[in-house]
């Protein structure tokens, strides 16, 4: 399993330079990807524009939307943005799509909430054709376009993964919740006769800077997920605040067959990233770490090989950076 890190793009008040610096440091750290969330009515950055900026600040990490709420956007324009980002980043985009969960975002975007499933299916069914036709250029960096994921916890979501996508993004939660969803995705995948395995992405929140960070993180989650009502308490309870918590979550997700786990910060304090990097580096046995970056950043773009990264963890980096 690889581990990526979220950019603090949905944490209110985070300055643009903090987001970019975060991406830069992640690129130099033990992370396989930087990931972003999507929300319209919130003090947050646009996911694709954030990743485009991150693409310019990084050379190596994959750039993942976990997810972008597809139906809020015009399908052709979204196809164009994704193709552009993928080409500009040397094929580093992983495009996670989902219907999202908030009526208010749909209202604000002037899209009928009831059409969300249909609109998402339309996007999933046409994006690859758009990319291949090159009527909506630029040409994708890899045949078929960027890696396509579907998120959600519904029967429809699992079936859509099997029918249209390369993999699945889970919404977050304890490993056994992930494992249950992963089973359903695999069941649908095999029933569809798809070869190989669906790529499985998980996500979780962390705040490692002691009690103050945990408190700030909790306040943020309560605010961000206020729309879920009482369920927010569950999300808060799952906030990872210790290296032990992270180690256990990683083990659980790896055992459940997760391919890539994105850990999202609950505060935008840059020291959080350093703390997480230390923890991840120390878990080299379970986590597949990226190859150490050699001297000068190569001019050659990292053309995405999300699966076949042919290197195991290199021991010894964790202690040194501490």
């Amino acid at each position: 399993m690889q581990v990526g890190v979220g950019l603090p793009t949905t944490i209110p008040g985070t300055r643009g330079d903090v987001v970019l610096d975060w991406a830069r440091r992640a690129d130099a750290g033990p992370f396989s990807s930087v990931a972003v969330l999507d929300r319209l009515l919130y003090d947050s950055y646009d996911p694709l524009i954030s990743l485009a900026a991150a693409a310019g600040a990084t050379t190596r990490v994959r750039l993942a939307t976990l997810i972008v709420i597809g139906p809020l956007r015009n399908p052709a324009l979204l196809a164009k943005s994704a193709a552009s980002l993928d080409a500009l980043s040397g094929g580093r985009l992983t495009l996670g799509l989902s219907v999202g969960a908030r009526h208010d975002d749909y209202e604000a975007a002037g899209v009928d909430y009831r059409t969300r499933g249909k609109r998402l299916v339309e996007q999933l069914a046409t994006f690859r054709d758009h990319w291949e036709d090159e009527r909506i250029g630029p040409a994708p960096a890899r045949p078929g376009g960027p890696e396509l994921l579907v998120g959600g916890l519904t029967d429809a979501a699992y079936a859509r993964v099997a029918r249209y996508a390369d993999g699945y993004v889970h919404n977050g939660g304890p490993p056994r919740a992930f494992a249950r969803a992963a089973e359903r995705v695999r069941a649908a995948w095999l029933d569809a006769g798809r070869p190989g395995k669906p790529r499985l992405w998980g996500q979780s929140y962390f705040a490692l800077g002691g009690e103050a960070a945990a408190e700030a993180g909790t306040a943020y989650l309560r605010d961000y997920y206020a729309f879920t009502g009482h369920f927010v308490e569950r999300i808060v309870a799952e906030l990872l605040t210790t290296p032990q918590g992270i180690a256990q979550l990683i083990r659980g997700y790896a055992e459940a067959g997760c391919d890539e786990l994105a850990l999202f910060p609950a505060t935008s304090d840059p020291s959080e990233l350093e703390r997480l990097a230390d923890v991840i580096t120390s878990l080299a046995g379970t986590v597949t770490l990226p190859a150490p970056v050699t001297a000068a950043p190569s001019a050659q773009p990292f053309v995405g090989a999300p699966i076949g990264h042919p290197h195991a963890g290199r021991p010894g980096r964790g202690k040194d950076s501490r």
Partner: protein
Amino acid sequence: MKITILGAGPAGLYCGLLLKKANPAHEITIIERNPPDATYGWGVVFSDRTLAAFQEADYKSYRAITGRFVLWDAIDTYYRGELVRCGGHVFAGLSRKELLGILQARCRELGVALQFHTEVPDLAALSEFDLLIAADGVNSLVRRAYEETFKPRLVPGTARYVWFGTDKVLDAFTFIFRENEHGFFQVHSYPFSGTMSTFIVECDEETWRRAGLDTASEAESIAYCERLFAPELGGCHLYPNKSSWISFVTVKCATWRRGNVVLLGDSAHTAHFSIGSGTKLAMEDAIALANAIEQHPDLTTALAGYEMVRRPVVETLQAAAAESQAYFEGVRRYSRLEPVEFAFNLLTRSRRISYDDLRLRDPRFGELVDRWFERHYWAHEHKRVYSLIAPAPMLTPLALRGLTLPNRVVFSPGAALTEPAPAEEGTPALAYALEAVCLAQEGAGLVLTEPVAVSAEGRVTPDDNGLYRPEHVRAWRRITHALHDQTSACIGVLLSHAGRRGATRPRREGLDRPLRAGRWPLIAPSTLPFASTSQLPRALDRAGMDAVRDDFVRAARLAAEAGFDLLALHMGHGYLLASFLSPLVNRREDEYGGSLENRLRFPLEVLDAVRAAWPAKQPLAVALTVDDCCPGGLTYTDAVAITRTLAAHGCDLVVPLAGQTVPDAGPTYARGFLTGYAERLRNDAEILVLVGGYLTTTNEVNTLLAGGRADLCLMIPPAAPERAAGERLAAVSAPVAETASAARPTVAPDTVERGGGVAGAGGSGGRRPRTMAAASQHGGAMTQHDGEGK
């Protein structure tokens, strides 16, 4: 806080006492229409976990409750006059009356006001309260008063049941099944005191009417049931307690709270009595509500917290209860099962208890099941009277016509491969070939291919395997030879024609995306495309049907020549034959469309022709969509009729599938998502069933087999690192390649004979497995196909 509780059942009393104990300042009144000593029903049952919760919530009542307990750990099943016992299930029960007495006493001790004999005609009649707790049962007045908020859904079951008590002393939870001239009856019975037991009688509506129980008085009902269950009652009697025949009503609500009003127990939710959880759920609700109110000073938050904590627990239990209820409502379909498997099926009905669980709970019962299975399904045919040493059910051989599968586990190569293995013009890839042989080496009883096209136009994608050219036969033959030579496994081919789902891109790019270049024309029963983006098919005319039928026949002959042991026809997943069956796809107005009989006509013509071309000693299977999962589509009821006809036309085995007839309509995907269909089909249509549906553990397989739910199980093998890909493939690559080179230039005439002959002789118990040591010395040369990707 001024708290009014409606209903002095276990939920209301327990919640009242817990709230008062947590905060004596609460003014709590419990209002009940009945007298304190009136009670409906007889005994209640609790599990270990519930008891632990009671102990934590209120030690005093916990002690009083456990002091009155009757404990037992066995489940007895009386069926066809035989008794099957299974131990290791810990239950505790007590009389409902005693329970209410204990809770009432505890309420009084703590100062909760109890008002019995108080009818509340409507809520306006209640004096002011800060919180109203509706513990007023399944017909809750409060829930009815605020229906627009609670949005209750009340679903009555199809069966009728009645509660009696009996003086029959039981030492186990006892199920009795009895068939008479009126129909099928079942009894759920369990002890609740030193002298009395609960005795619930249940039957379907028709049986109930035929037996005249719809018009019978209480005394007449008792007389009827005492006669019916005389052997088990052994002279003991049944006693009434406001006993009338009713339907079980499942209650579900959109929410359990409205301002300062909250639903508790049966008023909020019910779960079928067969899993014995009504009182347990109600009292657990009471604990959760009392805790939430104690923790959150704000009532809105507290009630929200209560619902959040309880809803997932309740929904999980309701799902299990629904499974159990469906089981009892349809239990008649299992009446062809033998007593041991009937009992095993009953014990594992809710899917929460498995084969492994039962072996752990009662090893003696586990052994009994294994021995019985082996004797009934295998040794029986070999004139053995009893088996002392029996394997697990999945390792028991299966005879299918002249073929013997060494065990009941099936694997498919495509699902085991980690990387795509595209065929070349229909010729299976080496990686696919190696995987097939490997799976046999690793223990498969049967290796079943993924769909193999009967013609180039019958392919779904250009990557698909085929069986329509001489080079295909050679390629398959080297697989079947290596497999037969090295293992005792059998191999089957799934023949298919893609129909309107053809000419699409390789599945790694997604499903049903039309080919950009090199498309071929599509055929279907009617001129309807699969998806809006799909190529338009041509409606088959008679000449076209003949051609397709002949393609299947040619493929069947080639399959025999290639050395396959079993042939399966694909009538599922929206492919050509399936699309004739589905009214969503088949809109023909000739004799091949319209009625089910007409829709089945062409698939049946193909089956008949293939059966005639395929060696009589070798089995034929059909993979069949049994539910289109779409309104207006083929239903399970149709599938039962179809299956019966297929069986009459020489089909030996059915592989149930669901969905994929039209895009975006399919089953609810989860572990074992096809087992419900398989179980019903096997027993409704009385046919052998091979079930897939994402089974990954031997425990699932054994549970399905031992319970009479399936005869063969398609398992998904574990992924690396459990299977060391490189090593295992090296072990078979050399012999496959050897057979390949031997088979390619000169096709020895006798190989064709041997292919059929080997299979035909399979009834003798299987072939010699040979060690791979010598062969693997040449291994390694072809491991570039081993799918290494990590």
